[in-house]
């Protein structure tokens, strides 16, 4: 890459990013303490990794959730919200509660995908403890199996109001 093409990429980027329109209405009560900044810790409580693919896509160049003030972080101590995917398996009940307790208040629980709501195809499985709201109080639910990146971003923008 020449210096000229680098400068061009910074000043006039060839956007692959989708225009997702104006911000949706703020999710009540939850958005006020965030001031337009949302750090998320993702917890896989027993997902089939379908939801993880869509999360990766939501933070990739096409949907670019970071432009709305959302970031994935490496520690629950840095997080404002837990993004929980999958039915909660028996082995993940303890770690999920510990992660929740390690998150500073005010904290938000986002359940991502149909499995997180009602265990989906894994309902009644011998290793499954239950849906996310059997373990933690869920604030936001994102429907879909797996949810579209647009749906994930709309829910997150409701929190950052950007």
């Amino acid at each position, binding site marked *: 890459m020449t210096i000229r093409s680098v400068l061009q990429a910074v000043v006039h980027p060839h956007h692959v990013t989708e225009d997702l329109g104006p911000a949706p209405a703020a999710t009540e009560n939850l958005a006020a303490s965030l001031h337009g900044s949302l750090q998320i810790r993702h917890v896989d409580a027993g997902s089939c990794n379908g939801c993880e693919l869509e999360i990766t896509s939501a933070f990739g160049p096409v949907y670019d959730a970071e432009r709305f003030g959302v970031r994935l972080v490496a520690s629950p101590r840095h997080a404002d919200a837990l993004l929980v995917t999958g039915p909660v398996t028996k082995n993940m009940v303890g770690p999920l509660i510990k992660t929740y307790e390690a998150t*500073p208040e005010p904290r938000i629980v986002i359940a991502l995908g149909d499995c997180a709501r009602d265990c989906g195809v894994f309902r009644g499985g011998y290793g499954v403890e239950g849906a996310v709201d059997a373990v933690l109080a869920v604030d936001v639910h994102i429907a879909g199996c797996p949810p579209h990146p647009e749906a994930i971003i709309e829910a997150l923008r409701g929190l950052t109001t950007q």
Partner: protein
Amino acid sequence: MSTLAHVISAVVAGVVQVGVVCVGGPLLLGLMRKVRSRLEGRTGAPVHQPLLDLRKLFAKQRVSPEQSSWIFPAGPVVLVATAVAVAAISPLATTHPPLGQSSDFFAIVFVLLLGSVFIALGALDTGAPFGGMGSSRAMTIGALAEPALLVAILAMSIPAHTSNLPALVRLGLVHPAVLVSPTRILALGSFLVVILAESGRLPVDNPNTHLELTMIHEAMVLEYAGPDLGLTILGESMRLMLLLGLLVNLLIPWGVANRPGALLFGVGIVVLAAKVAVAGAAIAVFEVFTAKLRLFRLPELLAGGFILAVLGVVTAVVSR
């Protein structure tokens, strides 16, 4: 002008410099993220996003690990306090900062290092495995980078007959020939390597990593939450702005006010912001095209910085 007027104007200059670094540090972080995301084909977060993050963090709950002592919360406070002290007395926008006679380059560098040492101690204090791992790595890199920096400062001080930082900047303004001398160029090359290592940028450390095993700086701050995390981010970004500000002022000193006066000082602030923004954007572009070095390859990079500094001293002694 009376002595009192001098004192007041010096204090005002110091306070303004601290304010500019406090706000400019997070904005510099936002700008570097913006440039990076643009080059990745993304839109990226707004440049002022780190300021929004800080506002939110300072209103959040403070969480400390059960076993930690007073060192854990003291770490971020010391980090910010040292950055504020250095911001007040450094020749950022004027070569006559308050307490300018005592702002020795060696002293400034080691006051900044005190902050890094306290962050490393705070990480050890948590008792978490990643904290200790990050601390030991950060101190290893520090031990390799510091000698290079010491020798680089020595190289710059030999032609100036002083290691006083405002005097070094003033020398560049009065005798521009110093700026293109091999001594200054080699020493500043070494300084740049040390800045990349000390502020945890690529190729030494990846500030965006989520893999605990590859972390250096991030591993040390994993346990900080809420206001403590806010202070850590603020302190680190202020440090980056200070180091880059000193680098650009030693490299291209024009714009720094060499005489007292509000107008010259204001111009100095604007020029400083522009120079630091260009330097930060250049580092962000460099980071897009660079991969992180393996930990065991880092001594080669830092030894390269040391060699540059030693060559700087040699040229300084030879050309005396």
